[in-house]
């Protein structure tokens, strides 16, 4: 195809009927505190992994809720479980367990 110097953006519409919500359900059932996330970004600001590479618990939350779980495995593997995020989270979210549960869910529903 002729290169016109621009690309066509992929369709970003999310079809909720098509998406897999088992992951989200599993995580929320096993770590209900994640419900309370307000996407404040505290965890991201302090994250040891986020300091080195683009990594972000808020984004995980968003991906989970949207059911966009393909890239999740790659994302989740960046966490070192150091626990800093847990200490700064204003909503007292047990972030490390969220990470473990997402890992478990990926393995379970793969």
């Amino acid at each position, binding site marked *: 195809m002729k290169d016109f110097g621009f690309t066509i953006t992929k369709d970003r519409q999310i079809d909720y009927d098509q998406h897999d919500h088992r992951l989200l359900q599993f995580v929320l059932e096993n770590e209900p505190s994640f419900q309370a996330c307000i996407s404040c970004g505290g965890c991201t600001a302090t994250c040891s992994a986020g300091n080195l*590479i683009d990594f972000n618990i808020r984004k995980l939350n968003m991906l989970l809720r949207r059911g966009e779980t393909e890239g999740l495995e790659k994302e989740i593997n960046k966490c*070192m*479980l150091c*626990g*800093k995020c847990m200490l700064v989270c204003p909503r*007292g979210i047990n972030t490390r*367990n969220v990470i*473990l549960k997402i890992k478990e869910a990926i393995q379970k529903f793969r």
Partner: protein
Amino acid sequence: MAYHHFVLPFSIGMAALFAILMVKFTIWIVKLESVDKRLIRKNLFSVKTLDAMGEVFMESLLHRKIFRKNPMLGYMHMSLAFGWFLLILFGNFQAQFYTRTMLHPPYFPIFFNFFVTTSEEYLFKASFEFLMDLFLLIVLTGLFIAISKRFYSRIVGLKKTTKLKFFDKLALTSLWFIFPLRLLAESFTSGLYNNGDFLTGSLGSFFARHLMVEKLALPAWWGYSLALGFFFVALPYSRYMHIPAEVLLIFLRKYGVRTRREFTSYSDIEVRSCSRCGICIDACQINNALGINNIQSVYFLRSIRERSVGDEKLFTCMLCGRCENICPVGIQLSDLRMTQRNKNGVQNTSTYDFLVPPKYKVADVLYFAGCMTHLTPAIKKSMLKIFDIAGVNYYFMDSDKEACCGRPLIQSGHYENAAKLMEYNKKLIRQSKAKVLVTSCPICYKTFKEDYKLNIHVMHHTEYILKLVEVGILLLEKGDSKVVYHDPCELGRGLGIYEEPRILLNKVARLLHPDEERENAFCCGGSLGSFNLSTQQRNIIRDDALAKLMKPNPDKLITACPLCKKTFSKGTKVQVLDIAELVAASVIVPEAKKALDMQKHETVLVE
């Protein structure tokens, strides 16, 4: 040859017990890892075997450790175990003195008083009769406490005892009957023949006056033999299996066998050695502060035996080590949990390839602050100040973009992931050519010291600062603030650093003492070992620990861990400081002395 049919239940039970134990022990030993077998072969014919025998005597018979924790419970265990042992031992002596030979059937000493009823003399007859009655009385008192404990566990100071299964019930019931039946059988026979000592003799003449002892004696002996038989057969399948298992455990432990990363045959022996004494339940803050009492070690070990380890039992525990510290059997409870987390652990697929090849600087001393210390910047600033005042040639290894030490991953069972971070850090440490690695976080410290296998000195900053003070490089000024020191789990129980912080604190402040300190110190509740506890639950644990720490009414609460500091400071108005901060604030810097120090430290720090 003395024989009567009633000895059969005992003899069969005894033979069955020996056979089953032989099989079980053989399987355990055969299944051991080859490194462990090598350890046994190496140490079998050494003084370690004698050592182990001594320990078996002290722990399996005298139950010294339980005694220390709780004299009543200790007496109960001791009187049953040691009393019974003495009965068997002296019963055998008695039989030998009587028959004047070593050869008598195994049941003969057990039922001696049935077979020997004449007043025929033998050496030390009177003493034997007295001692056998005395030992029986001791066992009976222990049994009395044990039965009361079943019905009312407060007597021995325990809040909870554990629940029972079928074979446990069979073994327990027969155990309860053994000694009362022995007492009855011997008393009836004594009453019949008018012999026996202070216990069986007097009871016997009492019975003889009121009962038909000639009709009752034989059934009582039958009952005694049956109770023994049932107990022996049930033992290997009941909780009492812990008795032989613990003996084997003590020997293997003395030879240097340990539970490591994987659940091995040795771990299985550990699991079976738990006597279900329940002491660990009382030690656990998750029980004391939160009232959750199904995850403690005794239940966790049971779930391993029943192959039903669930996430809750595995991931709620804070790995604080309080139960391990107090367990009278000395089971490696935290390590066992980690082996199970490993088995249940999910995914080791992290590559951490975003970690760029480490930058480094050649230096004498490496400083690793650790993730948590970056959350409490006052600690790292204090350390840098101390390094500067002492004129140390150091390199701050994780000042900006660095990797975690890997311990939280190890605690979660992601060993392979942890190994990748460790490899990264190791490379950096090697390249810097440093001789000392100082860390501010006990969590990192433990893993650097135990898992990294570095060939340089690894020190926590308490140790390092004390060293600087001892050689005169740091001069401290004594303040008048009253402080309480909180022992962080990983630094205290984890690595046994109790003295250094106290020596330091005595130099800069007035150290007060809470009731629980050193190995009995509480966990702050912030532990990275737990994955399940919610923030609310952690806060309750924290407040509970704080209340106890604050009893002496200190001006400042001092700890030596950034995580403890962070956790505690959210729960109290009292100032919470790391020991490094207090020291850094108390350093005197005499300018004139500085030049002199410059030469001195070169030699010391590099040592």
